[in-house]
């Protein structure tokens, strides 16, 4: 099992992973497992998505009409694959240690799903995927050239 996946699996939910550190027996890799705090969760998600799904982090292409609520974090990525190819892979990555609240749905070209990452403390986690071809602005954005998907996740403190 890859290190990022192991870290995520331990960090998300698992009550047996709340000690300060643990050593994996077979690989001998020391994983610094911290409490399930949001910075850890966000960091581990970043690592998981960039290594397991080969996503590339980018500055978010749009802006926010209203500021993000306190405690809300949004990170954006591009992937060479199309959104539809990523849906089950994201679900599979998160399936063991989080609960899917709202299954994937597509509105206005954006695929969105909503998860609860159980704690303590618990967090809400929303994934959004869109093909850049959906709008002229994204098609003309050099940052998104050759991208099959623009994706972001948003984490907040509200699991409801």
């Amino acid at each position, binding site marked *: 099992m890859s290190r990022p996946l192991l870290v995520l699996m331990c960090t998300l939910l698992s009550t047996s992973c709340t000690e300060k550190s643990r050593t994996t027996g077979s690989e001998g890799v020391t994983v610094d497992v911290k409490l399930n705090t949001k910075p850890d969760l966000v960091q581990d998600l970043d690592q998981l998505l960039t290594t397991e799904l080969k996503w590339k982090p980018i500055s978010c292409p749009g802006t*926010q*009409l209203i500021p993000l609520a306190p405690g*809300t974090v*949004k990170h954006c990525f591009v992937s060479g694959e199309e959104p539809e190819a990523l849906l089950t*892979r994201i679900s599979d990555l998160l399936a063991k240690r989080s609960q899917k609240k709202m299954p994937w749905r597509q509105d*206005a070209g954006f695929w969105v799903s909503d998860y609860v990452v159980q704690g303590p403390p618990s967090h809400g*986690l929303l994934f959004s995927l869109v093909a850049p071809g959906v*709008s002229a602005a994204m098609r003309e954005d050099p940052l998104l050239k050759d991208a099959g998907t623009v994706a972001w996740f*948003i984490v*907040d403190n509200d699991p409801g």
Partner: protein
Amino acid sequence: MVFQAANISQQDVARVEAYNKAHPERAVRSRSYRVDGDVVPTSGEATLPGQIYYFDRAGQATVQPKPVTPAPPASEHFWQRWERQGQGWVDDKKNGALAWAGGQLTANMPYLNAAASKGHVVPMLATSIRGERQGPTDPQRQALLNFGQRDENELAHRISDGKGGFMTQPAQEHVRTVFSGSYSTARDPRLRGEPVRKTAVPSAMDLTQGYVGVFQDNIAYDTGLGHLFALASKAKDYKTFEQQVAQVLVKPSLELLPEDLALARQLHLDKSPRANATAALKNLIDFQRTDIDKATSGLSDRWPVHARTTTDRFLKSKYDDQMAKYSTAPVLNTYQPKGAPADAPFRITLPGRIRAQLADTTFVRQIWSLYHPGAQK
């Protein structure tokens, strides 16, 4: 002529029937092609007057199934099943009522199992010709054989391997279809699952609170999105729309949309889970009694009486315990302030991540373009 189609409204069918009555020499007749077990033709209200042509779908697993024990006689089979359901019902660790309701679904609804959904994707004509022993006798059939669709269960699939990669799942079945006869639409013997579908499925969903979960999980995003759609349809330009979206999304809570409220009421979410579960249980018990009557028909008179008495006694002893676990507060009331009058508006507070998604300008612009497609090239 329709293939594996849903039914249409009774009102439209009545218009055609009236026309046929007035103009018998030019009467409109329909031809409906169906595959037995397909659930889609059980939807809608009525079929246009005409003839229904049925194909039976026969699937043979490509993987050798485990040996099957011969089925016991009907009455014995019934009692074995009842025993198993009884264990599920009384064992709280297995979610009692939920397990029992699940058992009802699989036992009483053969039209809602996996085979039912497979029944809708079978290309009946091409599959039928493929199964002919002599081979096609004319060019049209030969073309269907060469170029017609294949049943998707006969195809290998590329599926997720659960590790971020993909694996090939071999074909699951060899599929054949056989033409099995035609019937007048006035007397369709194949829709025997329809009463079960209309009554037992909602009942099982009420017992498991299935509708409650789906509604609660989607309502925040749905409400926010619905408000944005309403604004996009009315705003005079994009700048105004953006300003209005920002104003809406900073509100502490948003009012539920009329269509979502109508759906919630249709799903009886304006009643308590306990009230819904009580009604649902009664429906399912009625099905169970029908099952008893079927299983004991042809046996001596004492069997139906004995079976019904045993069932009633069993359910009565468990009924109150199970019902006490359901909430008595209507689900919709959770969207009103505590102690508010019944006509108070229903509102929901959007979590920060949903506000952030709805406030993203790439997303907002896309919603605008749905209502104003000429706004961008």
